[in-house]
């Protein structure tokens, strides 16, 4: 496993949409390096014949009956919105330069 550097963390932070200062990037790179080296042994635990488990208990997905139920009103749904207008969530420009 290669060492985790600042540039990698910067990329991850961009993917995760978390702005980080240079200082933070350097610190998290060091922490991540420690964590990843501590957990790296999991990749040696199982052979290829061991199936992966994504869910603790076997369950089939089910769909509810197609009946009208209680839902939030538009007003309730917007109750905690940082910004709203005409019953909708209001956000800044979605595309760069527009």
């Amino acid at each position, binding site marked *: *496993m290669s060492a*985790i550097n600042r540039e*990698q*963390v910067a990329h*991850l*932070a*961009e*993917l*995760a*949409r*978390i*702005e*980080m200062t240079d200082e*933070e990037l350097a*610190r*998290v790179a060091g*922490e*991540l390096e*420690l*964590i*990843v080296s*501590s*957990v*790296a*042994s*999991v*990749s040696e*635990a*199982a052979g290829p014949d*061991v*199936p*992966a*488990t*994504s*869910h*603790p*208990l076997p*369950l089939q*997905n*089910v769909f*509810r009956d197609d009946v009208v139920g209680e839902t*939030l009103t538009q007003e*309730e*749904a917007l*109750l*905690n*919105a*940082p*910004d709203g207008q005409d019953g909708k*969530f209001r*956000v*800044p*420009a*979605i*595309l*760069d330069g527009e």
Partner: protein
Amino acid sequence: MSESIIELSAAELAAKLASGEVASVDAVQAHLDHIEATDGTALDAQDRSRGTDGLNAFLHRNTEEALRVAREVDEARANGEELPELAGVPVAVKDLIVTKGQPTTAASRMLEGFMSPYDGTVTRKLRAARMPILGKTNLDEFAMGSSTEHSAFGPTRNPWDLTKIPGGSGGGSAAAVSAFQTPLALGTDTGGSIRQPAAVTGTVGVKPTYGSVSRYGVIAMASSLDQVGPCSRTVLDAALLHEVVGGHDPADSTSLPDPVGGYAQAARTGAADGGLKGLRVGVVKQLTGDGFQAGVQQRFEESLELLRRAGAEIVEVETPNFEYALGAYYLIMSSEVSSNLAKYDGVRFGLRVTPEGTPTIEKVMGASRAAGFGDEVKRRIILGTYALSAGYYDAYYGSAQQVRTLVQRDFAAAFEKADVLISPTAPTTAFDIGGVDESADPMQMYLNDIATIPTNLAGIPALSLPGGLAPEDGLPVGIQFMAPAREDARVYRAGAGLERLLAEKWGGPLWQHRGDVAGTVHDFAATAAQGGK
């Protein structure tokens, strides 16, 4: 110490309410008064992150509504109405579970001021059971931590020693129960967040079988691991609360269809004479010895001896793959965290920070998440993003899921030999607030969950109960029972059985060895006078 309302167990209080000896409104008022006396006042009125000079177990007190519900229960009882068993018994709710009419923050700046427009299913069930909700309890931000130090609103303190952590993430619920602020509380357990706080505060905590209690309206941390469960001072009380909140919920697609129940009955059976006779108890060899504090080990062995003398059959079981469990857990958990927390982007709810100028939405998201999340949450999101990245996915997330299979196989083999498994709940007693430098070694904090994590990976039920005090520091030690999936009744039977044996040995419940409640209150004032911590 004279017996006061707040020292009653939930079962005892329920009986006194039913007989009319005590009114619910008096019980609720007594608990609210005690919260007022022990939870402290803000150290800095402008900066909530410093917490209070007291326990700081509650982030929100639901005074008016709790008293109103209590009055309604008293009236209903006076009118001869048939009421649920715990009607009028107060309860606290971890601030990760949404409650209509009260704020829900997940102890994060991201959700400061958030008011849920709906109730979580477990909240709804508490209301249906007519239990007054005293308020919302503190936790590590978004339930990420083992000490409650990661709360954006200051740490909760341990009632046994105010300079110590109360465990985490559910330190608020455990401390509140331990300090008699409430007889019951709800917690959530993703890797030990109900059980490890129970262990270090000398209380009882149960992580039910995955899917047996609804997660609808519980702020998701790691969806394949999260489970809601009860916190209490007695095993029977935990069973009673579990019966109130458990059961199938069409609103949670991972909810088990099985009926729940029989837990209180199992607890009573376990506590009865001969209740442990013939029970096969498997000692998990991998969860003892190295890395476990001497006093923890000593109390654990003492419990084994008591069980043996009561007619339980003690066997040793091997779980060789547990050595990979912690690593697998941190990869799976952080991966699910990175996905679940993507919704906090400042668009539909939560904090929005708009940088100067005319920023794009991506800039707004980046700034909002930078300001809204604390260091530990960011660390886990970044780790999860890494584990799920192209090129690393198979080595990390894929391998971790395979380890999950191996851990399940270990449990299956162990349960061939034993009805329940036993281990210490946490490797150490409560440590100092601020005592772990996580930036220097983040793994050190994670090691607190070494004995609790395997059950989350396998989805099986587990219970922690007080096993006594470690001789070296006088702080509580937790004993953990584990059972196969859907066999939650077994942990209640074994837990109540051992609880009775220990109470006989101590001459009463463990908390009697902490000195009286008033003395503890006095200590709060003394600590505050020294500037707190």
